[in-house]
Each structure stands twice: as structure tokens, then as C-alpha cells.
């Protein structure tokens, strides 16, 4: 569905193409969000609020706003959906879901349906690889992308029953992370079970967390802090510190 490089800009030079003068090294960031039925009500509201607030902060961040590119993938509502900003992309639209952070507007999500987590993670890997190819063709460099998977449940099939298909991507994810193709964050929220958390641990051995409640605001701030660390060229230790502070949900100075 997204095998051909989607056009990201007007094909010829044009002054209204606001990315034309931006040669900054890019940082693709994918939010891979669970919006299945169990997220209904307060949780999905909290997620929407946090996305709006994070977007405002991102727009104001002089360093990140012209480097980070955001794509959103949701899994719930019987399907996996990629968003280009606030707009859901239909299969076959052939558009990249990545939007420069300064122009990003978040979708307003509703919660419903099943948890097609495996397919969502596969799509996340796919769009990251496609965007890299596209950026290389444009002569644009990129930092190591970040994928953030957030869920409160277990992977299911289209009928809502638990499925073991997630196991097929574990070796793929391990190899991709070993080759430093992206950093994967896998965050369990709400009442995620130990079984659900075991899936996230298998996906992201370094950056997984099981959190009380729905601390989406802190989660998105952690993604920004990690993006800033990546821009600075920090070593893995710095990312681990940032993640540790987030996971323990304590103020920085208590860490």
C-alpha cells in the first residue's frame, strides 16, 4: 500500500512550499497508539488532550519543530489507520503520513474495536523505512527514528481474540533495533496485564514500561526529550536515564 515513495511536496520549486528552505537533518517519530474499546472514555480523552498539548509545545520548540517529523498510527476500530496530521489516510492514497512537527496537527481519536497491534507495529516499521528511502533521495539526512507503541491490552485478531501473531515480529524487531534502525519504546498503560506487558518486553527489551493510569503527557514529553538527546548525539546512557526517569514517574531531581 505504501511501496511507492509518496510525494511529500509539490514536485517543482514553489515559494509556498514551506519546506523548501529546510535542509535540517530530519527525525522521524511514529506514535503507534492503541484506540481499541478498552481505551474508551477517560483514557482516550486524556490521550487527545495530551496530543494537543504536546503539539503546542512542539510548535514552540525552535530546535525540534523543523527537524522532527510526526506520523500517527492507530490500532482499534477494526483496523490499523495511518494519519497524516489530523487526516486519516486511506489505503492506496500513496501519501506519506509524516508531517513536519511545526505543521503537525493531531487527530482526535475515538476508541472502539479490536487490538491489531502486530499489524500496527509492522506498518510503523514500513513507513519508517519508506520515509528513509524518500529522504535519502531528497538528499536529506536523518537521525535515528523513534517509534512509540502505547497499549493497554493484548494483541488480538480482527475478531477480538488473542493471537500469537505478534511472535512473528519479535526477531524482526530485535534485528532492526540491533542495527540501530530505530529506537522502539513500548509502553503499557492503564490496567495492562502481566501477559500484555510480556509482549511489550519482547518487542522492546530496553525501552519498555508498565505504568499506572494514563500518563500520556509525560510519555509525549519523554519522546521530545529523547528526540532532543538524539539531536545532540547523546550516547545510549542518556536515553536510558531519560527513560528511567519517565518510567519511575518521579521529578527529575528525585531520580
Amino acid at each position, binding site marked *: 500500500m505504501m511501496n511507492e515513495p509518496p510525494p511529500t511536496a509539490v514536485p517543482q520549486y514553489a515559494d509556498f512550499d514551506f519546506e523548501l528552505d529546510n535542509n535540517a537533518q530530519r527525525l522521524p517519530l511514529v506514535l503507534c497508539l492503541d484506540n481499541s474499546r478498552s481505551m474508551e472514555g477517560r483514557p482516550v480523552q486524556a490521550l487527545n488532550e495530551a496530543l494537543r498539548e504536546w503539539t503546542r509545545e512542539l510548535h514552540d520548540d525552535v530546535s525540534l519543530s523543523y527537524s522532527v517529523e510526526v506520523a500517527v498510527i492507530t490500532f482499534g476500530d477494526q483496523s490499523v489507520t495511518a494519519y497524516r496530521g489530523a487526516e486519516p489516510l486511506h489505503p492506496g492514497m500513496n501519501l506519506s503520513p509524516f508531517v513536519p512537527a*511545526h505543521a503537525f496537527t493531531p487527530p482526535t481519536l475515538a476508541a472502539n474495536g479490536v487490538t491489531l497491534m502486530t499489524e500496527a507495529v509492522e506498518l510503523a516499521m514500513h513507513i519508517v523505512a519508506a520515509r528513509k528511502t524518500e529522504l535519502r533521495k531528497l538528499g536529506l539526512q536523518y537521525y535515528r527514528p523513534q517509534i512509540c507503541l502505547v497499549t493497554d491490552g493484548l494483541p488480538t485478531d480482527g475478531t477480538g481474540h488473542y493471537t500469537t501473531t505478534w511472535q512473528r515480529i519479535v526477531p524482526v524487531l530485535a534485528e532492526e533495533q540491533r542495527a540501530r534502525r530505530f529506537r522502539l519504546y513500548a509502553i503499557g498503560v492503564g490496567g495492562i496485564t502481566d501477559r500484555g506487558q510480556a509482549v511489550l518486553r519482547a518487542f522492546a527489551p530496553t525501552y519498555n514500561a508498565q505504568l499506572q493510569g494514563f500518563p500520556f503527557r509525560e510519555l509525549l514529553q519523554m519522546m521530545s526529550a529523547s528526540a532532543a538527546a538524539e539531536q*545532540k548525539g547523546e550516547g545510549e546512557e542518556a536515553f536510558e536515564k531519560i527513560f528511567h526517569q519517565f518510567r519511575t514517574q518521579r521529578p527529575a*531531581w528525585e531520580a
Partner: protein
Amino acid sequence: MSARGSTGTSARAGTGRRVLLDGRPVTLAERPLKGGGEASVYPVEGEPGIVVKLYRERPGPEQERRLTRMLAMSPLGDRPVDSNQAPELAWPTALARSPEGVFLGYAMRRFGEPQHVQLVGLFTRSQRLRLFPERADWRFLLGVAWNLAFMTARMHHEGLVVGDFSSSNVVVDRNGFVTFLDCDSIAFTDRETRESFPCLMHTTDYSAPERQAGGPASTESDDFALSVLVYQLLAVGNHPFGGVPHDSQEDSTVKDNIAASISYVVRPEKVVVPRGIIDPTVLPPGLLTLARRAFGPGVLDPKARPSAQDWLRALDEERGRVRGCGARPRHSYGSHLTGCPWCARAAAGGQDLFNPPPPRPPAPSAPAPPPPRQAPAAAPAPSGSDSRKLLLVLAVVIAVILLVTVVAAMEG
């Protein structure tokens, strides 16, 4: 966030932490302004003029000695002479300790937006127009480069090494004055004890190869970072190590191009450069020569790099010669060019890098890319005088292309 009364040391209640600044108790805001891997910077309640940087992990005794020593120093002391100018260094003003006396970090003056903007804010048109509405033309960028070179030359003269030098930890104000923020990473040697305090931080996009390989910060590694920053300012944001090596299937970064000494400023044939990249010949010849030294032989040979003094001299020569274009606002350029390169670029179908875009054409079919935040008004119909202007601009373009060719031939 309003100032709150003291609630003791309890932080869980949603109140910021209490710390002592040279013994004086203050309350920090609950949330940091900025948090990195190593430290977070907090506003101080009731004192908008200062911020406190707290280290994430308890700093060691050498960091406490470093900051104690820094408090006794006043580098670049007789500057600034102009009262409008902010200090060039966000120097520590007090040690921050816990109520129990444990060293946690330090206080410094706050250099925040909108008065002070990270240099990177000068590197894209929309941020320039938003953050520096009237001032940010090429003359301004050259002036900022001069101020940076001056600051660096002064620091080197006083035995200080910036160490972690980047477009994020230098801020610039409306007048183009610069301030270096992360002074606790500056490398220096204590004149009395001879203890040397190395710089342990660096930003890879500005790191010379020897620093990427783990070597210590030096005046030469500063010269490398300064060269990159000056080039970025004069080339309106373009990083000299941008571009992707031909036929690259690998992940491609600025860091890799620096390590492999691949700069399109010197070897344009080696990379696919992004569309819309600015021709290095917008730099006046004296400055272009320095850039080619820095990004050619100077990449792998620290001694071959132009020094901060070299940059300062060359920038100073050009400062008084900058021309204004007259045809469009905020267009100024080096005296080596006979026509305005920014008009030429706009006319050639590129962008006017210093002025807002014209009204957008009608939306194409399918979902349009998100609009710029300030939607322009409806498009006026082109008039006869507009097309005459266009012809004039085209003539200028051709003249500039010819000139650029001549200059390139002379350079070659």
C-alpha cells in the same frame, strides 16, 4: 504558575523543590523548562530573571570544585560595553544546594524566548520571520557570525574552550548579540591549582572528527564548530556537511559526513544535495576561502582550520561592504555579487528566503499538505507591471548566474 508558600520538602504535593542559592532559600517551579539526559533547567518562583540547573545524577566533587572556581572568575570581564548587549556567557551566579547542604547544580541568568532565541531559529525562513520580524536579513546573519567569532576569539584569548558549541546552546537577541548558555561544560585550567576541567559534552553535528573519536575539546575543535556555525549563518541555515553520499543505501547523517570529510562546499560531486540548497558562492571570496579550508583540509587536520581570529578578520572586512537590494525588503548580500542573489533565487522559481511567501494557489485535488500557520489573503490577479518586474528579475538572474560562473571559474 503562581508563587506558593513553603510546604516543606514535600514534592509530591505538586510544589516545586526548595533549594538554597548560596544559602538563600528559593522555590523552583514544579516543571523544568528543559530537561536533557544530564540536567534539567528550572524557573525560580518569584524571580523571573534567573534559572537553576540541577544535575540529574548527584554531581561529583570535581564538578563542585569547577563551579566554585567559576564563581570566582569573571571571563570576558570588561565586556559588554554597550548596555543594550546581553552578557556573552550565561556564567554561573550561585551554587544550588539542598536544604541539607548537598551540591545539586547552579543558578544563572535566564536567557529565554522571546528575547533570546536559539541560533537554530535563524536557519529557516518561517522561524526567522516569526522570531526576528524586521531584522533578519543577510547583513544581520553576517553580524551574528561576527559576534560569534568575536566571543570565541575572546574566550580562546582567556584560555577558555567552549567545548560543546552548537546552534542550540547559543542564543541570539533582536540586535544580533549572542550568549553562550552551557557554561558549566567550558574547558579551562585553574590558574592557581593548575587543575584542569575538561569539557565532557559535545554535539555531534558540530563535532570535529577528533572529538567524535573521543578526543578532548580544544581551541581547534571550537574552530571547527565555529566554522560550521558561521557557514550556516552565511548560507542561511544550510549545514556544510548536509547531503547524502551518492548511491547510499545506508542511514546518512551529518556526523558521518564530518567523519568521512564529505562537504559539498569543497566536494559537491560527492553528495546528493537537498533541493533548494544555497550556492556556497554567496559567501564573499575571503570567507569562502576560509570555509573551504575548514571543510576541506581542516576537517582531518586541526591545524589547518581557520581560527576564530581568522574568521573575525574576514567577517570584519565584509561587514561594511554589505549591499542592499532595493527591489525587495530584507534583501542584502555581499559586495562581490553584482546582483541580488535572493531576488535571483526567487525569480528562478525558488523561494524568497527573507520574505513571506506569496498567496497560495488554489488547493490541488486530494488532501493538501497542511497550510502554513498564517494563511495569506486571497491572490490578486497579476498585472502588467508585475510581468515587467518579472522580466527585470529574470535579467538579474541571468546576470547573477553569469557572475557566479565567473567567480567559480576564478576560484577553480
